[in-house]
């Protein structure tokens, strides 16, 4: 077998071994900005033929078997699950983040609030990608995990993507390639802005039929902001004192907002300028 693909999921390292050229091509593309040099201490992921099917393992533990795409999906899930639930020293939040001018904008929200689509809209505006769905906070730093963006096939923001960058994911979604030069480095949480994405009402403007308010950005009081933020944390026992202090500083200094998803891609560049 050839050398493994060395995949970094924030502060966690995995060495992926596979004899499938299709799987290797997929992981090389989906994790293009997360690849590094293999490290000896990394978890070992294997995707190998087993009878008439394929089998996925992590550190010798069988994750499952089946056709190639299913086992690739199992590996994708395990890379994130293992990092979030076991290996990482970070507190992980259900949030994307992008960066501009060395400062991060954390886009927080549950699934299907449009985080990935918003990242896709912000990249051509000069923002760099930190993460699309899982934000890793290590003490007072944001550690990037810039995997390819994943969007549902019908997501309208896909229309803005360069077709050459699109490729099929393993779970029915479409992926949008992210290049290394489009990604952010480790950033200081204390200079970040946090935006909670609120879905717009279906079929209506983001503010219903009434007049549009002058500023779509809704500042949150510190307690509400902190409650929203920590409700999106996957493992509260990983929240370090420094992380809590940094996030509380943002809340207390008025850098945590709610914003309708529909206006977000237009508003965020202005917000960054205003808060600079």
């Amino acid at each position, binding site marked *: 077998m050839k050398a493994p693909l060395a995949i970094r999921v924030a502060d966690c390292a995995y060495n992926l071994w596979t004899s499938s050229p299709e799987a290797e091509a997929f992981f090389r593309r989906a994790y293009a900005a997360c690849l590094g040099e293999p490290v000896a201490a990394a978890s070992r992921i294997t995707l190998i033929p087993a009878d008439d099917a394929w089998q996925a393992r992590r550190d010798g533990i069988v994750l499952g078997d089946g056709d190639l795409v299913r086992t690739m999906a199992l590996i994708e899930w395990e890379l994130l699950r293992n990092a979030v639930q076991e290996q990482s020293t970070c507190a992980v939040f259900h949030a994307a983040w992008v960066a501009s001018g060395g400062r991060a904008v954390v886009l927080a929200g549950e699934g299907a609030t449009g985080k990935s689509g918003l990242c896709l809209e912000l990249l051509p505006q000069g923002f760099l990608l930190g993460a699309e769905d899982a934000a890793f906070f290590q003490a007072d730093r944001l550690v990037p995990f810039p995997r390819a963006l994943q969007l549902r096939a019908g997501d309208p923001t896909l229309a803005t993507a360069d077709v050459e960058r699109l490729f099929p994911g393993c779970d029915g979604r479409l992926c949008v390639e992210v290049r290394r030069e489009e990604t952010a480095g480790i950033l200081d949480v204390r200079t970040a802005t946090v935006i909670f994405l609120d879905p717009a009402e279906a079929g209506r403007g983001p503010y219903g039929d009434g007049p549009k308010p002058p500023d779509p950005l809704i500042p949150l009081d*510190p*307690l509400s902001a*902190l409650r929203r933020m*920590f409700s999106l944390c996957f493992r*509260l026992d990983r929240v370090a004192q420094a992380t*809590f*202090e940094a996030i*509380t500083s943002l809340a*207390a200094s008025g850098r945590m907002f709610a914003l309708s998803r529909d206006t977000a891609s237009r508003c965020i560049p202005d917000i960054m300028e205003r808060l600079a």
Partner: protein
Amino acid sequence: MPRRRRLKPSLLMTEKDDMLFALDVDTGRVHEFNLTAKVIVQLFLDPRDETEAAAEYARTFRIPPQQALEDVRFMLERFESNGLLAASGEAE
């Protein structure tokens, strides 16, 4: 013998301006305390009974002992109802 109480060890705390914020990493709940409450919170970071805490609180704010005791009891009830106190066995 008066019962000694203390706050749960699972609380992360930080002060911003005059406010104290606490995150209970067991439950995910975030709490906010004003200046007065903050002082009482800080008194129960170590195990104390209400009389000891009230004496310290009265000295800090220069208020009558009976009023201090009432404030401390009120806050202890709030801590209790919000699940912020350590279980009896953990308090000592």
